């Protein structure tokens, strides 16, 4: 089997034109009847669903190969055209050839010698513009014009397709080559159709509606039209009809064949279905996002996959994925039966419950379902032979690829270990949420089970979650503590955090530490820093800054100064552990540390409520004062503007100066309010803590909820359009102060006034619209980028090469370093020094 596989590699694909002889040769039937089935519902001989073209109805047999629906690939037929017709898609090529060859000797038009040209120009000057002559036979060259879509004009006279064909046929192979075509694969006269291939029925299957009525494919409809006109044309020619009528019918035939190839050809109306819907013909099938190329050929559908809603589970490891029992029972992995696992395979086949075999594939490729009764299974198990394949259900520890769309980067698909769980959703640890950009508000994700050992090994060693902790985009951690994890870490490690022996034991136990350290506090309690330090390697030394701006010092694996917040954990700490200790270590570290953090959070009782956003009376006074001052400043500015005493900023109009200054003032006021809010809510306010340590939210959110929503903007300016001289009809005309231009004085806590609400919604709407536009535009840009760069790889000599082996970079990135480790390099003194002398 393997030997065969190796031989079946496609080396190249050649594209070429069919010659009329070739079309006749491959055709198994001449199609002459413009109809499909007879009254009994049986395919008509010589009709468009002739049995020689293959079958689509189960039960019938192909008259050519004897195959059934499944085994017969279909065979081409043909229609002998009474008069030749131009192939629309090649019109441009034909035009190019006609313009560059001589109509009488069919030779390539060569450049006229210089003297002759000068002579001609001289003569031309006297006799008016003179026509060019052929360099070989001296024939005057006609002016060739193309009348779109398919008519060629020679000196303003219509050239009928057979004339064009004769012209093209007269060109020698040598000249065809000079014109850039290959006469072996594409003679120019083949671009004029004399015989039309009819695709097999399997290409254009008819569908049977519930009513029993048959509905034919668009292509079949089009072919019916072609045959009908072809016959009519033939009858008219035989009857000796006047040339005019023949030419009309000929043109009609041309129209039908043109739309058969492309029903969106410019300058002609598209052929329509009876219902008025334009027909989907050959070009439409291939083209665009839903066409054959992008939908079916570049995007393949797969088996052994599952999709369901995701939900969080902080108890499973981050490289695990919780798979519902039902899905685990459905997905299988092929197991090659060997002398060493024969017994195991037999047991699997014999089992009637969950981890069991579902199918047996015999060495001849026959697939047998494992029996339902015990006797059957026993028999099957007994007959099991080495070399067969057993398809067993997935179990805990199997590797699977997990993916969430849109797959914007490679870490949108990572390998997880399967963990079978009750329930109906995929479970994942919230810490792996950022690479997938997933949340649990109803997101769905896909799971793929790999079907051979090579793929499984690659997934395990290259795509596994723990190897993707650093992002290849910037080398910083992308799998890092999220939201509550960060809060928990802070609560655990902040100064003054102490835990009783029981609490400490519990926390350490969750992290998998069973050896109790000595208490470090005088009162016999344990500091959070000590507990955290238990997970650090003893030779770790880090001095870094936290998000809050404090210094964090780890000395010999002990956290001695500072509290761990978002920046402290995801910065140097994670990056260095990853490079020095490897992915698996970091994975275990994170899993443990996060369990600790979450338990610390649980002990603390960390929560947010309405109280967190209620400002004291004094605070309100202060805020009111700030806002009032801002109002005065704004009004003052407006007064200056109206008196034209306002000083104009360089390069902008007076009005623009006013607007931008007001925006500055509102921002300044909001920041001042921010200071008051921060002080008033206090540093023990959970909301403020979360904002400061980078767990969730920002100070701005707190300001908007508790104090003032502040200025709303549309297109980075204060809202200014709407009614005449005012934005909303509630306002006085011509007033330019805060409220009238979208300053929301209320807080979300107090609630917005109707006009404030409206203007707030204006800003909200804009950002929504922008987001929609942005995703579409950036999606297309990314598609183009990927398409342009997808063939670039690093060769073993570190050059970057394109698919054709042309060199794009001599050393990848100038230094050959993996961007995944680019930021880490900074932390590693030894490597840094080394790079200098090898660079």
């Amino acid at each position, binding site marked *: 089997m393997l030997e065969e596989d190796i031989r079946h590699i496609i080396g190249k694909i050649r594209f070429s034109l069919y010659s009329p002889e070739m079309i006749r040769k491959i055709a198994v039937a001449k199609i002459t009847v413009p109809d499909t089935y007879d009254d009994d519902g049986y395919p008509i001989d010589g009709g468009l669903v002739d049995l020689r073209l293959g079958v689509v109805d189960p039960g019938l047999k192909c008259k050519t190969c004897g195959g059934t629906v499944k085994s017969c690939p279909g065979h081409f037929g043909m229609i002998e055209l009474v008069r030749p017709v131009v192939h629309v898609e090649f019109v441009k090529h034909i035009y190019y050839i006609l313009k560059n060859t001589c109509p009488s000797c069919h030779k390539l038009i060569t450049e006229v010698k210089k003297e002759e040209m000068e002579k001609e120009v001289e003569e031309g000057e006297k006799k008016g513009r003179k026509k060019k002559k052929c360099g070989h036979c001296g024939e005057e060259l006609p002016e060739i014009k193309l009348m779109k879509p398919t008519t060629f004009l020679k000196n303003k006279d219509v050239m009928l397709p057979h004339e064009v064909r004769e012209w093209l046929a007269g060109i020698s192979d040598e000249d065809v080559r000079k014109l850039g075509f290959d006469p072996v694969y594409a003679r120019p006269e083949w671009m004029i159709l004399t015989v039309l291939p009819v695709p097999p029925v399997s290409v254009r299957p008819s569908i049977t509606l519930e009513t029993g009525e048959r509905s034919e494919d668009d292509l079949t409809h089009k072919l019916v039209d072609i045959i009908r006109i072809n016959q009519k044309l033939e009858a008219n020619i035989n009857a000796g009809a006047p040339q005019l009528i023949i030419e009309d019918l000929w043109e009609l035939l041309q129209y039908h064949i043109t739309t058969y190839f492309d029903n969106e050809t410019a300058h002609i109306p598209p052929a329509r279905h009876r219902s008025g819907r334009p027909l989907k013909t050959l070009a439409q099938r291939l083209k665009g996002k839903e066409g054959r190329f992008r939908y079916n050929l570049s995007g393949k559908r797969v088996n052994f996959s599952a999709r369901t809603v995701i939900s969080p589970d902080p108890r499973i490891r981050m490289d695990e994925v919780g798979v519902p029992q039902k899905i685990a029972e459905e997905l299988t992995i092929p197991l090659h039966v060997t002398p060493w696992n024969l017994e195991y395979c037999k047991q699997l086949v014999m089992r009637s419950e969950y981890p069991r075999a579902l199918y047996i594939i015999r060495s001849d490729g026959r697939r047998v379902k494992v029996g339902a009764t015990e006797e059957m299974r026993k028999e099957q198990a007994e007959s099991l032979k080495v070399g067969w394949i057993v398809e067993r259900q997935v179990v805990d520890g199997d590797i699977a690829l997990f993916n969430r769309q849109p797959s914007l980067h490679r870490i949108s698909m990572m390998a997880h270990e399967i963990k079978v769980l009750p329930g109906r959703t995929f479970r994942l640890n919230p810490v792996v949420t950022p690479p997938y950009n997933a949340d649990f508000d109803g997101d769905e994700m896909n799971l793929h089970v790999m079907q051979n050992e090579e793929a499984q090994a690659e997934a395990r060693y290259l795509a596994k979650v723990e190897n993707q902790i650093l992002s290849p985009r910037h080398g910083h951690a992308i799998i890092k503590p999220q939201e509550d994890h960060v809060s928990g870490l802070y609560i655990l490690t902040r100064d003054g955090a102490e835990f009783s022996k029981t609490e400490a034991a519990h926390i350490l136990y969750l992290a998998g530490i069973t050896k109790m350290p000595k208490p470090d506090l005088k009162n016999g309690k344990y500091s959070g820093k000590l507990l955290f330090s238990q997970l650090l390697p003893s030779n770790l030394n880090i001095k870094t800054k936290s998000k809050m701006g404090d210094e964090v010092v780890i000395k010999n694996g002990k956290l001695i100064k500072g509290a761990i917040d978002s920046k402290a954990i995801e910065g140097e700490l994670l990056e260095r552990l990853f490079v020095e200790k490897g992915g698996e270590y970091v994975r275990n570290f994170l899993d443990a540390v996060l369990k600790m953090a979450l338990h610390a959070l649980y002990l603390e009782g960390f929560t947010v409520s309405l109280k967190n956003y209620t400002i004291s009376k004094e605070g309100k006074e202060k805020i009111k004062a700030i806002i009032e001052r801002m109002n005065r400043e704004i009004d003052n500015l407006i007064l200056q503007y109206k008196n034209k005493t306002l000083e104009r900023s360089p390069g902008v109009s007076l009005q623009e100066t006013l607007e931008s200054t007001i925006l500055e003032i509102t921002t300044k006021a909001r920041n001042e309010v921010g200071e008051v809010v921060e002080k008033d809510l206090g540093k023990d306010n959970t909301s403020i803590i979360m904002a400061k340590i980078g767990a969730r939210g920002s100070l701005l959110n707190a300001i908007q909820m508790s104090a003032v929503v502040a200025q709303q903007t549309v297109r980075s300016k204060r809202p200014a359009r709407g009614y005449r001289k005012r934005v909303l009809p509630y306002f006085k005309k011509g007033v330019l102060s805060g409220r009238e231009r979208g300053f929301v004085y209320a807080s979300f806590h107090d609630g917005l006034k109707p006009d404030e609400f409206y203007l707030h919604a204006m800003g909200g709407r804009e950002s929504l619209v922008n987001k929609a536009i942005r995703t579409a535009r950036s999606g297309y840009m990314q598609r183009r980028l990927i398409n342009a*760069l*997808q063939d670039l790889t690093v060769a073993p000599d570190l050059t*970057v090469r394109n698919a054709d082996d042309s060199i794009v970079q001599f050393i990848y990135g100038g230094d050959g370093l993996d961007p995944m480790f680019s930021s880490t390099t900074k932390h590693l003194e030894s490597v840094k020094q080394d790079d200098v002398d090898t660079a």
Partner: protein
Amino acid sequence: MLIQRDNMKKKLKIAPYEAVGVVSAQSIGEPGTQMTMRTFHYAGVAEHVPTGLPRLIEIVDAKKEPKKPLIDVYLKKEYAKSREKAEKVAEEISAVYLEDVAEVLDDLESYSIEIAFDKKEGEAQKVSFKDLKEKVEKALEKNAKIKAEGEKIKIKFDKKEKGVNAKYVRKQSQKLKQLLLKGVDGVYKAVVTKEGDEYFVRAGGYNIVGVISHPAVDPSRIYTNNIKEIERVFGIEAARNAILKEIKDVLDMQGLYVDIRHIMLVADAMTYSGAIQSIGRHGLSGSKVGVLGRAAFEETIKHLINAAAKGEEDKLIGVTENIIVGQTVPVGTGKVKLKFMPR
């Protein structure tokens, strides 16, 4: 210790056959969704300068001219230290056209053009009537009669002369309106900006060749955001560096951090052929070797038909081509081949 360090170095090197192209494309494309569409405002020079996603698209499209071309003119040491000197240079390189300081009226009946000099504007732009007159005289062909009256110039064309008709007169008057009186063609709204302790001039436009000939300009540090112009004047290496800088600036401004190697690869891919190729069907993707690869991207029918007419061959060397036929893709582990004879 040495061995350890060697191992570490090896670990940090890029893996052979790594699909670095896709990784770079994703690394630049993925943050695209997070970018804002807001425009940027350079004081005085230009408003609504595209930043973020629109500018990024502009760069990878390799547009002939950016929406808002800017040119940064750095000055020689003697000029860079004082604002006044820099202001003077800025004024000298700013283009002043005839229509900026005068009104041009054409009379198609009498075949004449009247230029009315606006003294106030002229003084502001430092253009004298004498200069203007000289420039106008030089610009016109000999067949025109030029008469100066006070602050006005009257130009009369001879009706009898061949080729002189109403269309010709209108054309001449349009040409005169765009007549460069002073400064560098295409450079406008020059503003002196400070960077560190150095003054330099930032202006609209991109006429490098014109600006460089000014004696105060440091020719080694001139820069414009028009990448095509950089390619034309300084060559492809400079263009590559310009692409690198422009993409980096866009990402930096958005606060998005993307490793420089990814940007470098995009810049190199766009320029390695020796001329700037855009990312898209008219550039890199359109010049790919595989027929199927091109057909699967855009303009499917066109590529298939051309391939058939030319009897083209697809050697299946690209990623898309192999996906289409259902084979292993030639990147990463797919490039490693193991040959053996099974028993």
